[in-house]
């Protein structure tokens, strides 16, 4: 039992008992060794179910827009979740007063795919021990350096510490290095255009349009998504290049200046499609053009919602 789990249970039980919230959204143990399940705790006795580990792969903020409007919610917030909460509040999707953020400085989410790539698909047990992840399979024990098997988004995480939390459990962590965070975007940009396009095509063509990326994303909350719109239909409905490329381009574009870089979309994808390189570019541009970073403040509107006469490139062609 790790200290963090105990602290989370204690805090969840307290805020339920003191009637500060109606529900606490956290994680409980999963049915598979490398996975955890989102949990919705409404009774303080049930707080014992909560746990926390590096296998908690979802962005819990995506549940905020799914819950009943009047509910008071306690939610486990890592850096990315807390920034999503801020963005949702700025976009009037949630009322901050009805939220209680239990902040956790995050050491990164372990990517089960990276582990399965090496040990096969039949893990029997997985535990974290300090900087190591120990996975037991039918043919024995495998040890990994935690840093090596973190999800890509977490490896280049800029802000592991929660912002604006009501309580923070655990000690703050050092912030990430922007140079390292944006390096993949710049590297991709440096490739010849045909290689960039080839990579995009190769990733998008595996898409099965299950929209798990959309559903897993805390910022994709539209009741009617552009692909569902039929009068007129904007994107081809099929899993053809037209259809899947349009989906990936526009989905990413709608996240411009809104994406919190949590990587939940990629972790949800059943076809291992890389997609953070798309939104990362857009986020990078927002930083470059407008000095905007999602969740950095409680007030700043996303750049597409805020524009001025004095924008750069006034006479751009």
């Amino acid at each position: 039992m790790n200290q963090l789990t105990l602290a989370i249970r204690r805090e969840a039980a307290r805020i339920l008992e003191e009637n500060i919230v109606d529900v606490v959204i956290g994680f409980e143990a999963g049915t598979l060794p490398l996975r955890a399940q989102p949990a919705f705790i409404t009774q303080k006795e049930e707080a014992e179910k909560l746990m926390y580990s590096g296998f908690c792969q979802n962005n819990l903020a995506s549940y905020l827009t799914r819950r009943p409007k009047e509910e008071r919610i306690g939610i486990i917030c890592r850096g990315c979740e807390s920034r999503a909460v801020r963005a949702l509040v700025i976009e009037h999707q949630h009322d901050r007063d009805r939220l209680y953020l239990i902040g956790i400085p995050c050491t990164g989410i372990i990517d089960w795919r990276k582990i399965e790539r090496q040990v096969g698909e039949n893990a029997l047990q997985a535990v974290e021990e300090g900087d190591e992840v120990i996975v037991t399979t039918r043919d024995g024990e495998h040890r990994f350096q935690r840093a090596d098997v973190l999800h890509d988004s977490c490896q280049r995480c800029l802000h592991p510490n929660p912002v604006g939390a009501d309580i923070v459990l655990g000690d703050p962590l050092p912030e990430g290095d922007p140079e390292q965070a944006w390096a993949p975007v710049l590297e991709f940009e440096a490739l010849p255009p045909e290689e960039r396009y080839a990579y995009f095509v190769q990733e998008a063509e595996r898409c099965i349009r299950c929209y798990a990326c959309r559903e897993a994303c805390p910022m994709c909350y539209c009741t009617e998504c552009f692909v569902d719109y039929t009068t007129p239909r904007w994107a081809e409905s099929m899993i053809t290049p037209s259809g899947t490329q349009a989906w990936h381009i526009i989905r990413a574009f709608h996240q411009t200046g809104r994406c919190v870089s949590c990587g939940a979309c990629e972790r949800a994808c059943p076809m291992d499609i890389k997609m953070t390189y798309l939104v990362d570019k857009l986020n990078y541009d927002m930083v470059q053009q407008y000095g905007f970073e999602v969740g950095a403040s409680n007030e700043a509107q996303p750049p597409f919602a805020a524009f001025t006469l004095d924008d750069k490139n006034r006479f751009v062609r």
Partner: protein
Amino acid sequence: MNNIWTPRIVVFQCQYSLYCEADQIWMDTQLPPHIKLIQVPCTGRISPLFVLNAIQGGADGILISGCRPEKCHFKEGNLGARRQLEEFRRFLTYLGMGAERMRFAWIDLSERGRIQQELADLEETIRAIGPIKRLVTRAITIGEQP
């Protein structure tokens, strides 16, 4: 080879962004067949999806033409459009499209002949770089093909 090929160009034009009368008449009635005009209530109405649809359908060039920044009929529709569509161009470029294929022309009533000039420039640029290859996923007919 290139003298047979004519680039296909889609122009999105804000309906309030009136050019000087002669230019507008030319746009409305004398646009050559390889240029397709799509009028919108404001450049702010141009969803990136429209642009993407044109590109997927085989448009070699896109011209987005609207009012000068301070002269939007809806006060700031064009300001939003400018931020969005510029970024969209950066994004498509990131994915391999030639940035030259998409351009903006914020035009004032006084700028006689500018739209023709912009179109001619765009066409020349596109002739130089050749037909669009990347991001085209289905060829639909835009105007008449020679």
